[in-house]
C-alpha cells in the first residue's frame, strides 16, 4: 500500500504541472488563438532561472518562486510584442509553427551550454521553524511517509490554479479578458487597450509555466529538455479536457496526473502512454473533449 500512496503522490505532482501548464495554454489560446509550443521551453527556462538565481547571486527558492515567473513572463511578453503579434489574422497553424521554432531555439541554446544532463537544485532548508527545516524532510502520516516538499508542490499549485481561475472568472480584469476573447473589436471600441491585454495574457500564461518550472526544479532536476516531452503530454491533456473552460483544464490536469500515477503502480509499462491512450478513447467517445466546446 505504501507504494500505491507514493505513486498517487507522484501522480498528484505531475498533475500539478499538467494543470499549471494546460491552464496557461488555455488562457493563451483564449486570447491569442495560438497554441504555445514554446510552453515547455519556457517552463524549462523558469527552472533554469531559479538555478541561476541561486548559483550566481545566492537568491534562494522563495524569491525564485516570485522572480522567475516575472522574469520569464517579461521574456514572454517581449516574444509576443516582437513576433507573435504579427500573426494576427493568419491561420492558427502559423502560431504553432512559430512557437515551435522558438522552442527549438531556446532548447538548442540551453543544450549547447548545459548538455542533456540534469543540474541539481536543493529543496530549500529555510525558514527554520521549530523542528522544520524549510521544506526538507517529511511527515509520517501513519499510512504513508509524506515528503514535505512534495505536499507543498501539490497544495501550492492548487492554490495558484484556483487564484488564476478566480482572476479570470470573478474579477473585473477577468471580465474584460473574457469579453476580449469573445469579441476583441467591440471591447476595443469601449476604450480597452486590447493589444496590451493580449501581451499581458501571454505574460501570465508564460509566468504560470515558469512557476511550474521552479516548483519542479528540486524534484526533477534542471535539464534543457525537461519541458520538451512534457509539453506533448500536456497537449494530450488539453485535447482531452478541451480549452473551453479554466476549471476544466485544472481538473483534467490533476485527474490525468493521478491516473498516470495509478498506472505506474498497477501496470508500470503503460505509464508513459496512458495519457495518450486516454486521449484516443476520449476522441472516439466524445470528439469535442470532456468540457465540450468545439474548435
Amino acid at each position, binding site marked *: 500500500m505504501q507504494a500505491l500512496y507514493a505513486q498517487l503522490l507522484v501522480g498528484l505532482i505531475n498533475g500539478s504541472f499538467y494543470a499549471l501548464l494546460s491552464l496557461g495554454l488555455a488562457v493563451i489560446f483564449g486570447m491569442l488563438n495560438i497554441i504555445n509550443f514554446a510552453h515547455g521551453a519556457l517552463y524549462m527556462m523558469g527552472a533554469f532561472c531559479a538555478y541561476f538565481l541561486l548559483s550566481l547571486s545566492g537568491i534562494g527558492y522563495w524569491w525564485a518562486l516570485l522572480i522567475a515567473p516575472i522574469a520569464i513572463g517579461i521574456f514572454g511578453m517581449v516574444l509576443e510584442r516582437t513576433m507573435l503579434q504579427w500573426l494576427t489574422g493568419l491561420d492558427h*497553424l502559423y502560431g504553432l*509553427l512559430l512557437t515551435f521554432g522558438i522552442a527549438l531555439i531556446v532548447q538548442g541554446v540551453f543544450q549547447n551550454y548545459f548538455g542533456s544532463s540534469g543540474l541539481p537544485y536543493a529543496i530549500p532548508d529555510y525558514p527554520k521553524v521549530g523542528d522544520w527545516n524549510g521544506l526538507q524532510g517529511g511527515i509520517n502520516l501513519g499510512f504513508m511517509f509524506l515528503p514535505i516538499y512534495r505536499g507543498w508542490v501539490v497544495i501550492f499549485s492548487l492554490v495558484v490554479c484556483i487564484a488564476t481561475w478566480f482572476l479570470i472568472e470573478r474579477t473585473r480584469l477577468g471580465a474584460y479578458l473574457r469579453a476580449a476573447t469573445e469579441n476583441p473589436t467591440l471591447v476595443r471600441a469601449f476604450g480597452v487597450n486590447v493589444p496590451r491585454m493580449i501581451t499581458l495574457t501571454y505574460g501570465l500564461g508564460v509566468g504560470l509555466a515558469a512557476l511550474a518550472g521552479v516548483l519542479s526544479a528540486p524534484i526533477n532536476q534542471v535539464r534543457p529538455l525537461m519541458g520538451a516531452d512534457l509539453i506533448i503530454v500536456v497537449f494530450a491533456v488539453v485535447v482531452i479536457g478541451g480549452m473551453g473552460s479554466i476549471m476544466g483544464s485544472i481538473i483534467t490536469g490533476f485527474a490525468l496526473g493521478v491516473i498516470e500515477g495509478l498506472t505506474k503502480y498497477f501496470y508500470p509499462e503503460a505509464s508513459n502512454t496512458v495519457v495518450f491512450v486516454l486521449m484516443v478513447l476520449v476522441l472516439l467517445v466524445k470528439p469535442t473533449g470532456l468540457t465540450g466546446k468545439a474548435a
Partner: protein
Amino acid sequence: MTALTDDTLPVTPQAVRDEMVVFGLMALLLASVPFTGIYPFFVMQALCFALVACAFNLLIGYGGLLSFGHAMFLGTAGYCSAHALKVWGVPPELGILIGTAAAAVLGVITGYVSIRRQGIYFSMITLALSQLLYFIYLQTPFTHGEDGIQGIPQGHLFWIFDLSKPTVLYYVVLVGFLAGFLLIFRTINSPFGEVLKAIRENEPRAISLGYKTDQYKLLAFILSGTIAGFAGSLKVFVAQNASLTDVHWSMSGEIVLMTLVGGLGTVFGPVVGAFVIIAMQQYLASFGQWVQVIQGVIFVACVLLFRRGVIGELAHYLKRSL
C-alpha cells in the same frame, strides 16, 4: 479561418503543363546525379525525405491539415521493413511492401482518430499519437530500443538489381521517389484533390454541397501516411538501419520545416525544402546543437517573413503554379 496560401491559382491545363515540364527537368537533373560526382548517399537521403515532405504537403497544402506526427509513418515503415528484411529474410520488394502496408494500416487507425478534430487540435492529436508510438517502440523488444535495428541486408530487388551497389540503389530510390511524387501530383489534380482544396478553403460549405468531408480527409490522411511509409521503407536500404530518431517528434518537426522552407501547398516546394534542410544538416554537422538553433531560426524567419517558401515566392514572382 484564412487560407494558408493566399494566391492559389486555379488548375488550368497550362498550369498542369508547366508543372509537367518542371517535373521532367527535375527527373533529368536527378537522373544525372551519378555522373556528377555528388555523394549519392546524400541525394538518396534527401530524396527519401523529399517524398515524406511531399506526402506531408498533400495533407497541409491541399487538405489544410497540419500533421505534427508524420515521423510515425516514416519510423513505423522503417522498423517493419527492417525487421522483415533482417529477421525474416524476405526479399527487398516484399520488405518495402510490408513497411508500406504497415504505414497504411497505421494511417487508417490514426486517421480515424485524428480527423475527428480540426485545425490546431488535429496537430496536437497527431503529435500525441506519434509520441504514443515512440514510447511503444522504445519498449517493444523487436525495435531493439536505443540501438535500433542495424546492419540490414540490402539484397537483390526482383532478383536482378543489386542494391548494395550505390548507383543501382540510387536509381531504385529515384524511381521510387518519382513514382510517389507522380501519385501525389495526380491526386492533387484529380477531382478528389479539388474536393480536398474546397475543404481546406471552406469546410462548412463543402459539407453543405453534399461532400462527406470526413471521408475525404481520412482518405487523404491514409494516402499521405502510406506514401510517407513507402519513403520510410526506401530509406531503410539507404541508411541500413531503423532507429528511434525516425519516430521522434523532432523528426516530425523537420518534415514540417522542409515543407515550410520549400513552400506549403506548392508542388515542388517540399523537394527543394528537403534538399535545403538535409544539405544544411550535412554541412553544419560539426556545430552540434547549433543546428537545432538554426532550424528554429529558419522556422521563425519562414513564418514571419517568408510564408510562401522558396518555390512559393518563385511561383508568385513568375505568376505560375509550381
